[in-house]
């Protein structure tokens, strides 16, 4: 029955798509399923070689990125005092845009797939780190107390209690990572790779080869969906137990004094500068394009440079905040919608994955066509670029509603909406806040991309100018400002999270 309905839906979808494509023929914007199938048949060799290249790099990046994320999260769990430092460093590395990292990676690796694999890894480690950390904390205090009573330490607790509890959230991270790694590998090809789906996409778009562009997008989306689907199957296999209630008493807030916090902050800033300078020196990167902290300090001491930067920042923030909220809202809203009407999920999820796996240069023209180049269009581009992690995390969050509570609601004949409002949404909150933290740097980077694609203003344009002006001082100043904004916004989101989860999920605040 389900298969029959799926086929009917797919056929209707394909027919509507074909109709739209044919209605738009003159504008060369949309290709229909027939034209795509024809292109794929005629160019199968080319596409298979490119897809193999990109997929291989994506898989390697996926493995390395997730491995790094899991190790970081384990370190944070074993040494809770390191959480702030490690989270900040992880956030900062994620904030470095491709335009700054691309040339460095290409000079370091030379020809070959090094930059593509690295960028795929960088695209996934941050979301997995945050999701996995939520999972490692999603334990009931009576379990950890029991371990304590038997004299077992943190390591034993990690292996016997926390790792098992973390599985559903780990899979959230991995499922978010599947399309992200693929996109990262594709975008990585923009740094001068010889082959792959990203290279072909660039060529097809500039060549007005609409059928090729759409075929490449379909292939990319298909591979990402396959990865997502396989990980979903693994998740269902490894999390056979229904979620249980997590008991966690209210914690006494032993807030550290302002002085201690200030010392902590200053030492992290110092550490960042030392690592920044040290890494660039260690690799012998030429200061022409790999700017050091001192270069940026001197550059921004000029009021003219600082003013240019701050004016651009203003323009960027005007879009970043609405874009961020729109992305979060879209992700969480879709997750709730899918929970209420599961059949919608089957139709929506593939589109969501496709939007995540296809480079924004392919999707942006369609969004611009639909929403214009103004405020709505820009916010739409940002929302499309960042909603996916929120959707996946919130879906899992909703699934984490304890089975006992669902039973209780059902035995009283509560409606779906009552269950949603009083049980499922509260259960979703840890995941929602994790995605709210994930979305901070993602939204900033998305806005800078949307700016050169559509609005032509802001930090994104300032950074794009580097390609023709070699103004790497300005580029790295933009990176510094983006990092600062990200850290401050992240701290604000974390503060809100603390207030809310103090009521709903104390275990996360351990």
């Amino acid at each position, binding site marked *: 029955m389900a298969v029959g309905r799926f086929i009917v839906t797919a056929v209707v979808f394909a027919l509507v798509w074909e109709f739209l494509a044919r209605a738009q023929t003159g*504008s060369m914007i949309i290709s229909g399923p027939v034209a795509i199938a024809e292109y794929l048949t005629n160019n199968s060799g080319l596409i298979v070689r490119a897809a193999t290249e990109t997929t291989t790099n994506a898989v390697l990046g996926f493995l390395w990125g997730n491995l790094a994320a899991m190790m970081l999260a384990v370190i944070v769990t074993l040494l809770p005092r390191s959480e702030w430092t490690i989270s900040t460093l992880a956030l900062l590395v994620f904030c470095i845009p491709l335009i700054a990292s691309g040339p460095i990676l290409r000079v370091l690796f030379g020809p070959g797939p090094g930059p593509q694999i690295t960028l795929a890894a960088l695209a996934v480690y941050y979301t997995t780190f945050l999701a996995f950390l939520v999972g490692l904390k999603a334990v009931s205090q009576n379990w950890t107390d029991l371990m304590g009573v038997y004299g077992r330490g943190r390591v034993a607790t990690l292996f016997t209690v926390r790792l098992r509890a973390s599985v559903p959230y780990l899979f959230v991270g991995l499922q978010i990572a599947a399309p992200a790694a693929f996109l990262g590998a594709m975008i990585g*090809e923009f740094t001068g790779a010889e082959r792959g789906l990203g290279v*072909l996409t660039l*060529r097809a778009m*500039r060549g007005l080869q609409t059928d090729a562009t759409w075929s490449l997008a379909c292939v990319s989306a298909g591979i990402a969906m396959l990865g997502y689907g396989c990980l979903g199957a693994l998740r269902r296999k490894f999390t056979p137990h229904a979620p249980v209630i997590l008991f966690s008493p209210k914690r006494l807030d032993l807030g550290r004094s302002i002085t201690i916090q200030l010392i902590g902050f200053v030492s992290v800033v110092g550490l960042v500068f030392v690592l920044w300078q040290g890494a660039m020196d260690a690799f012998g990167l030429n200061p*022409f394009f790999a700017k050091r902290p001192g270069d940026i300090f001197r550059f921004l001491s000029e009021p003219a440079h600082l003013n240019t930067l701050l004016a651009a920042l203003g323009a960027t923030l005007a879009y970043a905040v609405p874009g961020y909220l729109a992305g979060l809202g879209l992700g969480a809203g879709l997750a709730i919608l899918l929970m209420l009407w599961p059949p919608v999920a089957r139709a929506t999820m593939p589109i969501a994955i496709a939007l995540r796996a296809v480079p924004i240069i392919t999707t942006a023209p369609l969004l611009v066509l639909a929403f214009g180049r103004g405020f709505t269009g820009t916010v739409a581009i940002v929302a499309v670029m960042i909603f996916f992690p929120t959707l996946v995390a919130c879906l899992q969050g909703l699934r984490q509603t304890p089975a006992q509570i669902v039973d209780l609601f059902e035995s009283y004949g509560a409606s779906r909406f009552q269950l949603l409002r009083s049980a499922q949404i509260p259960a979703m909150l840890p995941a929602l806040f994790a995605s709210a933290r994930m979305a901070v740097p993602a939204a900033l980077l998305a806005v800078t991309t949307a700016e050169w694609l559509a609005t032509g203003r802001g930090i994104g344009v300032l950074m794009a*100018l580097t390609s023709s002006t*070699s103004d790497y001082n300005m580029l790295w100043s933009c990176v510094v400002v983006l990092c600062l904004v990200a850290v401050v916004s992240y701290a604000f989101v974390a503060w809100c999270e603390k207030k809310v989860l103090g009521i709903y999920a104390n275990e996360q605040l351990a």
Partner: protein
Amino acid sequence: MIKPVHLTRRFFLQTSAAGFAASATALPALAANLQPVTFQLSWLHSVQFGGSYIAMKNGYWSDLGLDVSLAQGGPNAPVEPPVVSGTALVGISAADYTAAAVEQGAPFKIIAVAMQRNPFAIASLSGNPVNEPADLIGKKIGMAVANTPVLQALCTLNGIDINQIEIVPTQYDPAPLVSGQVDCLLCWETDLPVAMTVQGVENTTMLMADYGYAVHSQTYIATEESLTERRDTLVSLLKGEVMGWNDYYKDTDAAAALAVEMFPDAGLDPEAQKLQAARQVPLMFSDLTAEHGFGWFTQDTVAENIETLGLLGRQVTADLWDRSVLEEVYG
């Protein structure tokens, strides 16, 4: 009519034959002792670099003792960093990019000029054409905002107020023009218009070089250090390059076919490559190159460049150009 360039493969083999005979006897395994050199291209592989492919395929570089790797460019692969770092000996840039990089402290010299005439053009649909700068008034132009100084320079050169043109930030893609979102595009004469023609979209182009925009493009850049330390390698690299481009000039279709054949994974369209190869010829070959050879430049062309670069906000002197390598190539 442009005369065929006097430099041929035979010319080089004759002039360097003595040197080769000596080194060949001293080093029997000459082929194994080729000197590795990286040559950084400015964009994805295509017939845009056809002469280099011919040099490679016909062994012009290996005959001169070089094992050249052609490093492809891309949207996030700027040419300047690898050349500054020394991972690439020579890069393909443009006079405005090079001037900016020098301003930022890069020790670059322009050692040869492939595109004598700048390839920037205004492309429009033939039904609503932009034939001359005055036609831009009241039009919507799609372009990267980063290129605003280029449009500004064109306007200044032709006495047009840029505020009368509506700039729409777009990706570098012909779709916004074809779908009617803009009236014209700022692009290269040799890429987006070629794509439109091949896809059957009738279009008109106005080459900015015809209206006073004099900026050398597809220029060869090297660092000052390379010019002193690795001079012989630079001479050999450019020699092979010149021979490749001379062959290109004789048969652009063959160059296009070679590009398609050499890069089967690049997804190159043979028809588009042919058209692009032909359209590049008037930009690269002129009376000047017919007389002096491919890549040549003079005090006069440099002076024109300095003037246009001034309009782009780049104050440069003739020191940015260094013809000494080219003079050795033809010496």
